[in-house]
C-alpha cells in the first residue's frame, strides 16, 4: 500500500523552493504545500467535478494540535503538536513559528500582502510563549484570519537551519531556502533540476496528516501540451496537472484516463470594459456588451464546457452564493437596443487586449467576442500582450480599454473577491471602477463573520450593484483539469497547485 513512485507532468516551471522569495512563481507554491506545514489546514470534501476538494468551511490541524480564540476575537493561542519534528529531527517549536511568520510579514511583496489579508501585519503580533505555545494578537477581529493561516504562505521553517545560513545582508536566509527547503512537511526535495524536474521523497516522520502513499514523487516539466497529452494517454506518466480544457473533454471520454475538472472557487473569467475609456462610461454600452456576448459558444469553444456557466441567472438575488450567474444572456436585439439608447449609437473602435500567456482561453474568446461586437457596431482589434507586459498594462497601469481578466480569490468569500476586484485602485480592479457604495460595503463586510446579520444583506447589495454597473462582465467559472492514469486521490485546492500528499495508486 505504501511505497512506489509516481510521475507527474506539468507545463509550468518551478523557479524557487521558497514561496517567500521575490519572484517566486505560482507553480513553485507546491513546494510550500508539500514540503512545509502550516499551523492549520483546510478539511476535505467531495468536489463537484469528481474527486476531492479542500473544504473552506472546515479548518483542521496540521502542526497545531489545537487552538483557542479569545472572546473578543483578538487573541489566538495555538498548541503545537509535541511529536512534530523537522527533517533534521529537531522538535518544531513556537519560536520556529514566530520566526517563519515574522519572515512572511517582513519579506515584502506577495507573502506580506497575503498575510495582511488576514490581519497579520507586524512581527509584534506574534509571540512564542513557550516551546509549544504560540500566540497571535490581532488589531481587529476578522473572519479571514484563521483561513489565512491555512493558505500556503504562513508555512513553518526550521529557523535554526535558516538562521545558520542567514547573512547580514540576508537575515531571512532567502538565498539558502531558495535552493534548500528546511521544513517538517510530508515530502523532502531530493533533487531539483531547474527547468526539468523536481523529485520529492517522503518524510516518514510526518505528523501533519495521514502518511502519503507514495515514497517518491517526480514532477517533470513538459512545456508542450501535445507532448503532455501523449504521455498521459500512453500511460508513461500517472498524472498530468492542469491540462487544457479540450484535452480534458477528450481524455474524459477515454478509457483508462480519469479526468477531474473542478470549477475553481471564487474565480471568474470576465470581460472588463475600462471606465477610463469614454464609451464604457456609458452604462448602456456596457449592457450592450453583456447582451451581445455569445456566452454558450464561448463556453463551448474556449472551455469545451469545462467549468460552470456564469450567465442567464435569476434577476432577483436571494442568496450569497458566489460566483453566481449574471442576469444577462445572449440577446442581440437587446444589445442593439442598448447601443441605440447610448450616446455611441453609431459604434466605435476599441482594442481588445489579451495576454499571450493565457492565450489558450483568451484567444478563442476574444475572436468570438470580436465577431459578436462587430454586429452591434463595436469594432475591435485583438491585441496580444506578452506576459511580462500584461500585469503592468492590465493590473498596474490599468490602461487596457477592453480586456479579458480572471481573478480568483484564495479566501473563499464574496467580499474578499469584491475587495480585490471592485474596490477602486485595488490590483484586480482593472476597469478603474469606482462606486462609493461598494467601497463602504466592502470595508464594513470584509472582516465580519458570515453569521453576522449585516453580512447577507451587504453581500446581496454588492451583487446588485456589480450586475447593474458591470465593470466586470462574467463569462464563465473556469475549471482546473487534471488527468490521471493509474493513480487516484487527487484533491483540488484553491491555490490551484499540486498537492501530492493524498495521491495513491489506482484502486482498481
Amino acid at each position, binding site marked *: 500500500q505504501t511505497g512506489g513512485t509516481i510521475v507527474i507532468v506539468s507545463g509550468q516551471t518551478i523557479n524557487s523552493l521558497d514561496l517567500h522569495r521575490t519572484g517566486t512563481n505560482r507553480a513553485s507554491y507546491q513546494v510550500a504545500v508539500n514540503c512545509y506545514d502550516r499551523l492549520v489546514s483546510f478539511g476535505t470534501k467531495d468536489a463537484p467535478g469528481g474527486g476531492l476538494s479542500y473544504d473552506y468551511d472546515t479548518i483542521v490541524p496540521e502542526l497545531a494540535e489545537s487552538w483557542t480564540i479569545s472572546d473578543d476575537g483578538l487573541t489566538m493561542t495555538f498548541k503545537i503538536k509535541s511529536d512534530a519534528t523537522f527533517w533534521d529531527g529537531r522538535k518544531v517549536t513556537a519560536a520556529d513559528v514566530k520566526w517563519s511568520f515574522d519572515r512572511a510579514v517582513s519579506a515584502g511583496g506577495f507573502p506580506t500582502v497575503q498575510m495582511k489579508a488576514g490581519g497579520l501585519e507586524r512581527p509584534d503580533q506574534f509571540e512564542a510563549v513557550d516551546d509549544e505555545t504560540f500566540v497571535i494578537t490581532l488589531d481587529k477581529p476578522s473572519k479571514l484570519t484563521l483561513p489565512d493561516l491555512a493558505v500556503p504562505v504562513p508555512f513553518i521553517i526550521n529557523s535554526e537551519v535558516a538562521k545558520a545560513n542567514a547573512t547580514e545582508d540576508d537575515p531571512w536566509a532567502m538565498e539558502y531556502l531558495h535552493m534548500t527547503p528546511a521544513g517538517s512537511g510530508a515530502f523532502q526535495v531530493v533533487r531539483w533540476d531547474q527547468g526539468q524536474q523536481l523529485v520529492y521523497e517522503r518524510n516518514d516522520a510526518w505528523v501533519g496528516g495521514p502518511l502519503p502513499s507514495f515514497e517518491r514523487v517526480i514532477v517533470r516539466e513538459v512545456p*508542450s*501540451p*501535445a*507532448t503532455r*497529452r*501523449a504521455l498521459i*494517454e500512453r500511460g508513461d506518466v500517472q498524472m498530468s496537472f492542469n491540462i*487544457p480544457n*479540450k*484535452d480534458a473533454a*477528450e481524455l474524459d471520454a477515454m478509457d483508462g484516463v480519469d479526468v477531474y475538472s473542478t470549477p475553481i472557487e471564487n474565480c471568474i473569467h470576465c470581460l472588463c470594459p475600462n471606465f477610463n475609456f469614454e464609451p464604457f462610461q456609458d452604462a448602456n454600452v456596457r449592457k450592450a456588451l453583456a447582451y451581445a456576448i*455569445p456566452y*454558450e*459558444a464561448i463556453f*463551448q*469553444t474556449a472551455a469545451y464546457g469545462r467549468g460552470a456557466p456564469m450567465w442567464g441567472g435569476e434577476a432577483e438575488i436571494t442568496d450569497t452564493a458566489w460566483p453566481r450567474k449574471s442576469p444577462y444572456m445572449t440577446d442581440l436585439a437587446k444589445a442593439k437596443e442598448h447601443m441605440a439608447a447610448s450616446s455611441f449609437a453609431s459604434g466605435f473602435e476599441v482594442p481588445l487586449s489579451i495576454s*499571450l500567456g493565457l*492565450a489558450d482561453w483568451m*484567444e*478563442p474568446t*476574444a*475572436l*468570438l467576442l*470580436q*465577431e459578436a461586437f462587430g454586429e452591434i457596431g463595436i469594432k475591435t*482589434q*485583438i*491585441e*496580444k500582450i*506578452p506576459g511580462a507586459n500584461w500585469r503592468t498594462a492590465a493590473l498596474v497601469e490599468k490602461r487596457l480599454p477592453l480586456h479579458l481578466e480572471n481573478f480568483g480569490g484564495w479566501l473563499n468569500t464574496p467580499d474578499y473577491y469584491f475587495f480585490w476586484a471592485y474596490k477602486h485602485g485595488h490590483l484586480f480592479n482593472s476597469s478603474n471602477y469606482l462606486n462609493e457604495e461598494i467601497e463602504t460595503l466592502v470595508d464594513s463586510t470584509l472582516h465580519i463573520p458570515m453569521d453576522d446579520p449585516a453580512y447577507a444583506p451587504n453581500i446581496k447589495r454588492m451583487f446588485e450593484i456589480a450586475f447593474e454597473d458591470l465593470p466586470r462582465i462574467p463569462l464563465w467559472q473556469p475549471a482546473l483539469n487534471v488527468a490521471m492514469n493509474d493513480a487516484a486521490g487527487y484533491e483540488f485546492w484553491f491555490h490551484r497547485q499540486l498537492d501530492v500528499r493524498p495521491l495513491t495508486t489506482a484502486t482498481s
Partner: protein
Amino acid sequence: MADMTASTPDTTRRKGDTTLGHIVYVLRDNPVTMLAFAMLAFFLGCAFFGPALVPYDPLATNAARALEAPSWDHWFGTDNLGRDVFSRVIVATRLDLTISVAAVALSFVIGSILGSIAGYWGGWLDAALNRCLDTIMAFPLFVLAMGVVAALGNTVENIIYATAIINIPFYARLVRAEVNIRRHSGFAQAAKLAGNSDLRVLAVHIFPNSLPPMMVQVSLNLGWAILNAAGLSFIGLGVAPPTPEWGIMVAEGANFIVSGEWWLAVFPGLWLMLAVFTFNLLGDGLRDIVDPRKRT
C-alpha cells in the same frame, strides 16, 4: 575578317536572344526549375485572387461546426472556432508572401548598399561594416528576431523588420565579396575611362554583376522568412489573431495533432512547406535568368 565569318554563321536574332525566349529556355532546361516556377505561379495566383475565390469568410466562426474533419463542404476541415481551414490557408498566402517578399526586399536593398560600399571602397569603412555584421551574426539569428519583435511589438511590420535585420548580413557579405573581386576588373577600369564616377561605376557596372549569386540567396531567404514568421508564431510572437497566417495556423494546430485533429496543422504546414520549398527551388532558375552568360 576571317575570324568573324567563321564564328557567326548567321547574324539574325535567334529565339534565345530575347529575354522571354531566354526565360523559356531556362525553364525548359531544368525540370526542377520548371516545377518551381509553376508552383510560384500558383502561389502568386492564390495571393492575388485567393480572397475572392475562397468558399468561406476566413474569419467567420461557426461554433456548431467546430473541429470537423475534411469533407466536401470543408476541404481542409474546420478549426476549433469552426472557421474553414481551406479558406484561411488560401487567404493567408497573401500575407505570408508579403512578409517574406517585403523582408527580403528590405534586407536586399540595405545589404546591397552596405556591401557595395564596403566592397568597393574597402579600408576602414569595410572593417567597420564587417564588425557590425559580425555583431549581428554573433546573435543566434532567430533569437535576435524574437528579441526585436518582443521589443517592438508583434505587428506585421515589426516581423518584417526583424526578419530583414537578421538577413542583412548575408546580403552585405555576398555583395561585398562580389564587388570586391570586380572592383579592379577591366570593365570597371574601362568605365572609369569612359567618364563614370566611382558611384556610377559601382551602381551601373559592378553591382549588377553580383546579381546571379544574390538570386540564390534571395530565394533561400524568401523561404526562411516564412519559416521565421512561423517560428515567431510558435513562440507566440506572430501576427495578431484572427488574421490567417500559416505559421500561426501550424503553431496552433500543432497542439491538436495528438488529439487527432491533424488537419489543423497538416494542411497549413503542407502549404507552408510547399511555399518554402518553391522558393528554395527557385534559386537556381532565378540565377540562370539574370545571368547574361546563360544566354546563347
